[in-house]
């Protein structure tokens, strides 16, 4: 197996890195460029950028931010928010993105997943799912950064998305996002059992132990971190060390 990936997630609104709680009450954290560089230097395995208001405006606004990150950050960059066509994808890849994360447009038009996978490869097509629990063991997919219900069952959608060509799933718990209460382990485990592509767990990391739990019990392949890093509650090195001590395989990295 590969090493578990430690991913810094940067939610962006306009020119700013922001963070909310359950995607609401967005607070400005600072400059995306400074944070990206710092996380790279601390040994992040990957960065995920999500334009948190793009779906509202129908376009992704991250070209400049991604282009500037790609100048001095030499790790994979995944970019999501407002991607609606293969042209959007081509543009972002040209800006320096390696993968795209698609949520809203894929739910509206599932064929887009296949188009992206055919043209750029499955490994480029990350299906982003925002999941809100509706009953024990059941979650509904939300669109537009956790704002709109879709009526789509998350587990069903994950399976279909992978059949259509998604190469990876970014599963974000809307209930846990920004709460520091730990990942929704049931959600991650249920999705991981359903599909044979890597799963990135997102939403709720309060401590390094939460990462261990979502890997061990949830079978996540990667862990997305936001608030815990942005608010300097832990550094990437501390999280990495904690995982390593717990016996989870991570990339060896010396800063």
């Amino acid at each position, binding site marked *: 197996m590969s090493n578990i990936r430690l991913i810094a997630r940067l939610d962006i609104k306009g020119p700013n890195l922001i963070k909310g709680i359950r995607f609401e009450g967005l607070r400005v954290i600072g400059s995306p460029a400074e944070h990206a560089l710092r996380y*790279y230097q601390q040994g992040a395995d990957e960065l995920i950028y999500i334009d948190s208001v793009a779906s509202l405006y129908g376009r992704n606004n991250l070209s400049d931010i991604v*282009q500037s990150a*790609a100048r001095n950050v*030499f790790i994979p960059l995944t970019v999501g928010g407002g991607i609606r066509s293969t042209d959007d994808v081509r543009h972002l890849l040209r800006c320096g993105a*390696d993968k795209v994360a698609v949520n809203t447009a894929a739910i509206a038009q599932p064929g887009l997943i296949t188009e992206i996978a055919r043209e750029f490869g499955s490994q480029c097509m990350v299906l982003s799912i925002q999941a809100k629990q509706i009953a024990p063991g059941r979650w509904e997919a939300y669109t537009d950064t956790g704002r709109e219900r879709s009526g789509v069952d998350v587990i069903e959608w994950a399976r279909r998305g992978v059949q259509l060509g998604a190469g990876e799933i970014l599963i974000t718990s809307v209930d846990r996002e920004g709460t520091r209460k730990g990942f929704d382990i049931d959600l991650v485990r249920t999705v991981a059992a359903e599909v044979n592509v*890597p799963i990135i767990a997102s939403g709720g990391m309060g401590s390094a132990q939460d990462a261990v739990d979502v890997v061990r019990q949830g079978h996540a392949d990667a862990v997305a971190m936001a608030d815990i890093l942005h608010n300097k509650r832990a550094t990437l090195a501390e999280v990495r060390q904690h995982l390593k001590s717990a016996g989870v395989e991570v*990339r060896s990295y010396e800063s």
Partner: protein
Amino acid sequence: MSREITLIDYGVGNLFSVARALEHCGAQVSISADPDEVRRASKLLLPGVGAFGNGMQRLSEKGIDLAVTEAVSRGTPLLGVCLGMQLLLDSSDEFGLGHGLGLIPGKVVAIPEHTADGSRLKIPHIGWNGLVLPIGRKGWQGSLLETTPVGTPMYFVHSFMACPDASEHRLADCLYGDTRVAAVIGRDNVWGAQFHPEKSGEAGLKVLRHFVERS
């Protein structure tokens, strides 16, 4: 030795990040989709993200495939990255059989989804994985990996893998489950890296720097 590198633009690459990483390593980079410029290049880098068939089709539509093979036969150093590495081989099974550039004998096949003991491997193979010596290889002297310690983690993202026919064309592997994945291949002035050196942090930059400075 020239630090000029022509980055081949055939519409499927993460060009900007490769260009930026090469510049960071001291290269003078020009991006080109023009077969004549490819023929005249002092060094070539073939990037690539995506599907084999689509990539090869775009290369041949523009006549770049012939330009690349001509340049290589005259001794121009070429580095293929990810899909660009897979395109160096003869053929691929991805989305139906497709023909490649045929610069390194062998083919591209899907990564097996199961290990010998039946456990499931996730596909695509995504993540950081350490470079190991292929069976029978003693070291990396005189290759792109000359300054890279065995075990160095690099960033991989792929569902298909290159299988060179000849073991001497296999420079480095990585282990995914019990599958040996060809991580770096090479033959004379042609090299291919399955991982993304431009996305593998400082370790990846070191490999690119070697290509820029030494090849």
